């Protein structure tokens, strides 16, 4: 049965239930040695992979923070630009300038 607890909170025995034959059943000195040596290599490999993945997660997290900061800055600038546009639209000169632009376009046709 699959546990609903996070993997870090589970014991190794939860992950690989140790039912079945006793530990010494079907033992073989050569295969036990090969098995143990390879288990240690696998353990080392798994550790390296965890470290590598952690580094990559950390790196991606930094990138995420940088991207978020840049996004916030861009939003602030956008907001400032919107404010300036509103000011321009509200000025008394704006209707005059817009009329001149329209007249120029008409004349060009």
């Amino acid at each position, binding site marked *: 049965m699959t546990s609903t607890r996070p993997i870090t909170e589970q014991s190794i025995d939860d992950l690989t239930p140790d039912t079945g034959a006793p530990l010494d059943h079907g033992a073989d000195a050569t295969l036990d040695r090969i*098995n143990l040596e390879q288990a240690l290599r696998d353990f080392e490999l798994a550790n390296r992979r965890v470290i590598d993945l952690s580094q990559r997660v950390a790196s991606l997290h930094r990138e995420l923070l940088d991207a978020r900061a840049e996004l916030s800055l861009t939003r602030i600038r956008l907001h400032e630009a919107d404010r300036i546009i509103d000011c321009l639209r509200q000025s008394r000169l704006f209707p005059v300038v817009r009329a001149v632009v329209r007249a120029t376009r008409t004349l060009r046709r």
Partner: protein
Amino acid sequence: MTTRAQVLLAITVYNGRSFVPAAIRSAIRMDTTNHDVDILVLDDHSPEPGWSEELAVLCRDLRVRYYCTPRNLGIPRNVNLALLSAHEGSYTHVVVANSDVLFPTNLIESLVDVCSTDDTIASVTAWSNNASIYSLPNDDPVMMLSDQDRVDWLSTTVANRYGRTALDVPAGISFCMMIPTWAVRTVGLMDPVFGRGYCEETDWSLRSQQLGFRCTVAPGVFAYHAGKGSNESAGLLRAGATTVDEHELIVDMRYPTFRSDVGAFVASGVLERLHAEGSLTICQAAVREFGYSIEVGYLGGSSSGPAPVVTIDPSTPDSPVSVTFLGFRATIDIDRRPEGDAVGRQIFDFAGGRPTGVNLLDRGPRTQHLLDQLGAEHATPIYPARV
């Protein structure tokens, strides 16, 4: 004279009380005339109560080496034990095999032969009814093929046709796959990232190909594979699933072109041709060796059992003529040109003789004409059974 190969056949076991003994008994029957074969049963600490003890006794009685790992490793790491044992034991080849397989007697001979054709072959997968996309189509493999004598006959038959042929494939299937031990040293082991299993041999195959080696299937050897032996019940596979999605994602990430390579391989039509040709080879060998009957009927072959049957659809002059045997189906290529021989003559040529009987399942405008051609004017009318 060829050098004797030293082969380790490793059968990985996890539960499977109902089928593992048959696999081991099948393995010890293998022909060792030209090569030395040691069998190693690797019990991945099966949790089924009492099973590991039973298996140990069985292996002792059959003089097969048995090892039970102190903890459950999962398929990739259990297979790695096999690969490492072969390396340490100075074997020349290792066969990694599931425990729901019936091995043909010519397995080792044929696989070693294929390996010997090219020094760059890193893996040879046996042909089977259940070997992913390479599977030879069969209507009812469990009923028809799970029999040692039939497996031996089938394997001998395809061996006669394909010999040492090696078909290059996108990836091997480790249900029954031979790896020369030099390839283990060069390519390495199965990656334990694949946890309890599935896709590890795909990853291994692709690593071997990246190093310039070949992954092949041997159509000249046939092993019966039940499939999903103990994986579904062990929770390794979700019900109805044939793979583990998370592992497929790892393969996709590591080898972005793999799926398109498989697509191109399938689209090339090589498998389709091989399947059609393989089925025809088996059916033709069967009708020639065991005799056959002919059925004339509109609905096609009613069954595909242990007796070869040629079925003729009498509805149109160019209707297909098919042949079935042990769940295999093939179409006989009949020359329909006016100057071509009569259908009957061509069937007799294909079968190497006349049928033991002709069964008339349906009557129709062309049936009498066909019966005349078949020289079966007094065919047995059994059509009421089909009504």
